[in-house]
């Protein structure tokens, strides 16, 4: 959380645009890993020069992921085109003791794909084939570089889809989804990535290949697939991923309700849950988030609302209609001052557009912001929001709130101006206090963004020493040399530096990606 200052070398992207030495040693004292010209020479024997980068503009774009304020210059970047190249690369790294970071589109919000000094980045975007899609058995086997939404596109002719929908789904890759167990607005009913992965072919950090799970929904061994998913790259790289496909819901009912207070919106959610309804999604935005979304994409949200609630029912039409009549009663009872129902698919998209753009939209209200991701028990949402408000006042920083209300997953956005001295530290302090509040309420420090580099100091606050020791022990057994995405989730002494946060990722500014 609290960042160390960026090393001078890593902070200046321009410098890396210049011709650099072939072997770029990391700043002294940052890494225990040996770096030899022998390693690079061997790497060159595996890759042609256009797929092995050690400098240049393309190289710079790999220095950070969507947590763009964390930057680290790697030794080299390789772009494999087939599975065999990945395996050979990992085996080589193992022999030479060189750390590697596998990366897809780099949309991690927790710094999960931040390079390691003295290590290489393995860019997997070219492994983007859907190897097999079986509509009758309802699964697909895909390579790690396949973009999330492309699985659903390929499955749509059969009336099927891949359910998890992180809001970066048009660019994020399935390999990254697996590593970080990505969620999305619609995981309330059908779960996150882990609930939709049936099997994996993986390469372990020592270069050996293993198969976990299969194509069946059931298994007769411990759930090693479940253990691998969400392990943040510490257990190696997924080479092939078998995902479950589900039927596209027959009908949707999407309703937008505006309230004069956030508390009323929260109470409506409690009522909906208590009534036994199981919506596909339930989202709340506060006034600041509404303002931002409206400024960015004009979804037509009522601007004077203090709390905006989006509820979406999905499923078989008869069931959805029956649920809708219950929902309508509950909503009327919750006394929103404005209600809008999507009458068709484009109106539904319009309602979602504002919500899905909310994170990047906040960039219009503030030069800098921190995206947080924490979970509290659903029944304590109101209390948590009040507490966040209190903290926000105390720190004199504005906080916009966007959250998956159905599962208690908060996404406070802390606004600050990085050009003011001490503002970043203040914002980070607030972020930390919000996460501590989540822990105190019996929740979690992350619902879907993962621990990554960003929250590794927080993990020991959520778990006790024994649990952390056990995680480290598992990590050591799977990766004795600690070369697979080191410095993520679990702390290291030679920590990757935590540089200054500077706001939006260039892709966000261009409107290509947005944050959940």
């Amino acid at each position, binding site marked *: 959380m609290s960042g160390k200052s960026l090393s001078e070398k890593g902070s200046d992207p321009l410098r890396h645009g210049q011709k650099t030495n072939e072997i770029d040693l990391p700043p002294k004292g940052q890494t225990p890993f040996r770096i030899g010209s022998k390693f690079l020479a061997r790497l060159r024997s595996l890759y042609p020069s256009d797929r092995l980068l050690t400098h240049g503009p393309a190289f710079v774009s790999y220095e950070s992921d969507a947590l763009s304020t964390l930057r680290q210059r790697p030794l080299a970047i390789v772009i494999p085109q087939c599975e065999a190249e990945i395996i050979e690369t990992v085996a080589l790294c193992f022999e030479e003791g060189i750390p590697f970071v596998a990366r897809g589109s780099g949309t991690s919000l927790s710094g999960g794909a931040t390079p390691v000094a003295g290590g290489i980045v393995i860019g997997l975007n070219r492994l983007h084939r859907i190897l097999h899609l079986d509509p*009758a*058995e*309802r699964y697909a086997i895909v390579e790690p570089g396949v973009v999330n939404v492309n699985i659903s596109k390929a499955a749509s002719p059969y009336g*099927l889809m891949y359910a998890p929908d992180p809001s970066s789904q048009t660019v994020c890759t399935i390999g990254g989804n697996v590593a*970080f*167990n990505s*969620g999305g607005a619609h995981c309330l*009913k*059908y779960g*996150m990535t*882990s*609930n939709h992965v049936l099997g994996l072919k993986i390469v*372990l950090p020592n270069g050996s290949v*293993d198969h976990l799970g*299969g*194509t*069946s*929904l*059931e*298994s*007769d*061994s*411990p*759930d*090693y697939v*479940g*253990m691998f998913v*969400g*392990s943040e790259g510490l257990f190696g790289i997924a080479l092939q991923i078998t995902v479950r496909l589900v*039927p596209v*819901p027959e009908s949707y009912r999407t309703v937008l309700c505006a309230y004069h207070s956030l508390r009323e919106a929260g109470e409506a959610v409690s009522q909906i*849950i*208590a009534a*036994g309804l199981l919506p596909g999604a339930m989202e709340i935005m506060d006034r600041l988030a509404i303002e931002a979304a409206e400024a960015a994409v004009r979804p037509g949200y009522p601007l004077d609302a203090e709390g905006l609630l989006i509820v979406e029912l999905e499923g*078989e039409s*008869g*069931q959805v209609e*029956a*649920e809708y*009549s*219950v929902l309508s009663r509950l909503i009327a009872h919750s006394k929103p001052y404005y209600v809008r129902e999507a009458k068709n698919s484009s109106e539904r998209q319009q309602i979602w557009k504002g919500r899905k753009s909310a994170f990047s939209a906040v960039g219009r209200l503030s030069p800098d912001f921190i995206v947080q991701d924490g*979970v509290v*028990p*659903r029944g304590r949402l109101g209390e948590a929001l009040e507490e966040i408000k209190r903290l926000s006042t105390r720190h004199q920083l504005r906080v916009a709130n966007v959250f998956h209300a159905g*599962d*208690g997953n908060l996404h406070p956005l802390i606004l600050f101006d990085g050009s003011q001295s001490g503002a970043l530290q203040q914002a980070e302090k607030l972020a930390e206090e919000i996460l501590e509040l989540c822990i105190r309420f*019996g*929740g*979690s*420090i*992350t619902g879907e963004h*993962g*621990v990554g580099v960003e929250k590794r100091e927080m993990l020991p606050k959520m778990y*006790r020493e*024994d*649990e952390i*020791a056990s995680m480290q*022990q598992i990590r050591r057994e*799977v990766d004795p040399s600690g070369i697979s995405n080191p410095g993520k*989730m679990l702390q290291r002494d030679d920590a990757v530096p935590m540089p200054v946060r500077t706001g939006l990722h260039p892709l966000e500014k261009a409107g290509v990606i947005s944050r959940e």
Partner: protein
Amino acid sequence: MNSHSQEIDCRGIEPSEPETLIGQWQELLCSSPQVVVAGGQTKLPRRVIDRSSAVIDSALLAGIVAYDPQEFIFTARAGTKVADIRALLEAHQQYLPFDPLLVDRGATLGGTVACNASGPGRFRYGGIRDFILGVRFLDGCGRDLETGGKVVKNAAGFDYPKLMVGSRGALGILLELTFKVFPKPEKFASMTCSFASLGAAIQGLQRLAASPLDLEAIDLVPDNGSPCEYLLQVRIGGAADAISSRLSRLVHEFPQAEILDDQQARLLWNGVINFSWAGNDPVIKIPITCGAIPAIEEFCRSSDLRRRYSVAGNVAWIAGPNLRPLMDRWGVQHFFINPPADHPLQRLPAPGPFAMAIQRALDPKKKFVSL
């Protein structure tokens, strides 16, 4: 390990509090025998347990630790009877949608997790792996680990709760488990539909499973009355107002379908969940996809083995007096229930490197016997 089972009373440890067990576990770690955890013994009775192992009986380690109906989450000790949990949830119109197995025979929550014992309802929203949120367990180093979380969404740290599903005692001693639950549908409805050939039945099953009709369960069974016919058994659940129109829609897809009345439906699904169809024979579970059904049927047809293809063709349950040839053919390692007296406890294939690494980390002294 070589084992020949006998009706003996093994060295039993019967803790009623986790703290007692933690102390006993520290002592056991310093002594020689391996340990086996037994719960309700609905799947593996004590008689099959090797005499050299110490038995930790978790049946007394029971009780609901926390249940907040508004959060749709409960935490219970491993020895808690699933029937007790079911009753408690029902009082609040909630349920575990995955049809935990052997509930009426006394299955415990810990055994249900360790044996990954979910039934036909697993089709709709997922199985045990999809509902488990947290697990407290003792590992082979003597650590008391509280892993996962007590909220419905949590991406912090490794996913131990899922790892414990299907671990069959090999990775730790389960103490407490946290689950999310779902609102129970107001009403259920079921139908059966017969097909003149296996091919037609599988086609019907796959058509239903890929359709946007929200089905709770789809099972396929050979029709006992006639050798070539197969039956699909389907259950839906939801709002009372919509259930009959939804059922008509389902029946419309299959004109030969028969609607079951509530009594018939209850009998059918209770029988499935409690394996009454298997009598006292041993039962094995084979994870499959539909594509494997014809070969299994071919193998079984001339024998006296009974079959049920559950969870839309994702699990084959097979019962009969002699399952060995079938187990050899499909590489099945475990009996699910009623293992025969001469059943060796461990017949495990060489685990892959990932599994081995996890086992080394959680059980470095090889104290756990996998059942």
